[in-house]
């Protein structure tokens, strides 16, 4: 991996992933009932330049085959390592909330093709931030501890099951503690944002119309402006034969669509030499605040318009309850390459978005589908 001379090193990663969804009524992560290669295939290049023994500059460029995903500079930061225990990174960084969040594009780094989307697919977890990250490592006898803290801000467009939002997140911060003992790792992380503002097409117009018409409660319900706290707990065990992995996330927010999320997964896997087989169960729960459309119908045509307006917006707000069982096979056929195959049985709920993007006239879709994927992962 990586070519190098005295001060600059180049490395990279690539993945080619194909997927097929067995329903003609919806999309899932962009997949439909047609074999497609473009949704997750990508290539990334990284350059690390050692300015001095203690200071280095790193950049990561990502090229995505799918136009829905952004290509561009994912990372660009200065790293200051005054000694092996401490590391300070400043610049554009990947947000490190879940175990594999900051290597989400490096499929080679994790066992699945798609890390459980009930957690890793959450639009709450903004993929990158502009800010700083401080890391400290120490050990107490055989227990090795890694502590990180980060602070920054994020501003970009995100896509939630087809609905586009512009997000501004200021004062975004959190911490991570990883406690390692032999093959075990216990991980706790927090992700807090004091102020998130999200703008979506039509929502501002609707909320100001609701306000003017005297429906302040309803206007409030649909305003995406507030604070969020997420706490994550993870447990991993790795050995020559077995791998166990579980993560749990709990989100509390003053923003209706982010409130009451409690998602988790657990994975059990077995190694057979260069082969690995895994079973993953994942579940997304969201306890939604009750929504009641209090606008009277048939009194005034303008009120009627408002009534149907908020019904429409409400139906587009994502309600991502979904459970899934995923079977994964991985074959490390060369030291830097792996072949993977994955089948996910997706079990959503009628009337919820369940992470699907419905096609036109698919209201009767039962939110159940099977996703087949296979791919090759490469690091160089």
């Amino acid at each position, binding site marked *: 991996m990586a070519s190098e001379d005295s001060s600059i090193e180049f490395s990279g990663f690539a993945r080619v992933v194909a997927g097929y969804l067995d329903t003609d009524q919806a999309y899932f992560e962009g997949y439909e009932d047609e074999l497609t290669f473009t949704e997750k295939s990508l290539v990334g290049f990284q350059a690390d330049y050692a300015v001095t023994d203690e200071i280095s500059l790193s950049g990561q460029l990502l090229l995505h085959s799918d136009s829905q995903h952004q290509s561009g500079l994912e990372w660009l930061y200065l790293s200051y390592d005054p000694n092996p225990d401490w590391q300070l990174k400043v610049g554009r960084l990947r947000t490190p909330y879940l175990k594999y969040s*900051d290597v989400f594009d*490096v499929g080679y*780094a994790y066992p699945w093709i798609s890390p459980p989307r009930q957690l890793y697919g959450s639009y709450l977890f903004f993929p990158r931030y502009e800010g700083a990250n401080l890391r400290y490592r120490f050990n107490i006898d055989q227990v090795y501890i890694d502590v990180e803290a980060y602070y920054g801000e994020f501003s970009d467009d995100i896509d939630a099951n087809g609905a586009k939002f512009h997000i501004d997140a200021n004062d975004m911060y959190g911490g991570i503690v990883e406690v390692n003992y032999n093959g075990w790792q216990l991980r706790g992380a927090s992700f807090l944002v004091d102020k998130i503002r999200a703008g979506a097409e039509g929502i501002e117009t609707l909320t100001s119309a609701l306000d003017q018409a005297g429906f302040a409660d309803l206007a409030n319900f649909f305003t995406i402006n507030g604070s969020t706290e997420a706490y994550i707990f993870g447990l991993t065990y790795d050995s020559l034969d077995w791998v166990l992995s579980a993560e749990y996330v709990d989100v509390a927010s003053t923003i209706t669509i982010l409130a009451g999320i409690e998602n988790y997964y657990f994975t059990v896997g077995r*190694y057979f030499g260069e082969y690995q087989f895994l079973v993953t169960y994942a579940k997304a729960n969201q306890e939604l605040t009750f929504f009641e459309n209090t606008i009277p119908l048939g009194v005034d045509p303008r009120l009627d318009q408002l009534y149907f307006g908020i019904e429409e917006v409400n139906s587009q707000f994502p309600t991502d309850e979904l459970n899934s069982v995923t079977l994964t096979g991985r074959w490390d056929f060369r030291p830097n390459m*792996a072949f993977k195959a994955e089948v996910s049985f997706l079990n959503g709920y009628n009337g919820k978005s369940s992470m699907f993007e419905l096609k036109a006239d698919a209201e009767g879709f039962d939110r159940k589908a099977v996703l087949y994927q296979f791919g090759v992962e490469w690091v160089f």
Partner: protein
Amino acid sequence: MKFLNLTLIVSSLLAASMVSPQVLAASEIVVVANLPAPVSMQKHEIRNLFMGGASSEFEPVTLKPGIHERLIFNARVVGLTESRIQSYWAQMRFSGRSKAPVQVSSVEAMKQYLLDNKGSVGYLPADSNVPDTLTVLYTSG
């Protein structure tokens, strides 16, 4: 003449298989270091050092993937499969945390690297002649 040729081929093939690394290779390794004064290291400290643990005194050196002694080291000291170790280093490198140890392509190159670099820590077959200037930190098995 043809018969003789065949015998030669068969016997040389047999001889080749007898000296293949699998047959001759030791099944244990010794972890050795180039240090000014002898120290002792426990297995978990060696594991941590080779998995990116913080150290300003020691520089870990490994053999390239696929070399027999590396497999023994992975199994006996690190306790992880080669594929998991590779995934781990991909995660560390591309998240900007730490980089994999220096890799050398043979046991001979390892011995030479250890002799040439103060503070370096590597591993050799348990039955090899460890040069006097290197310190044995740990013996597997």
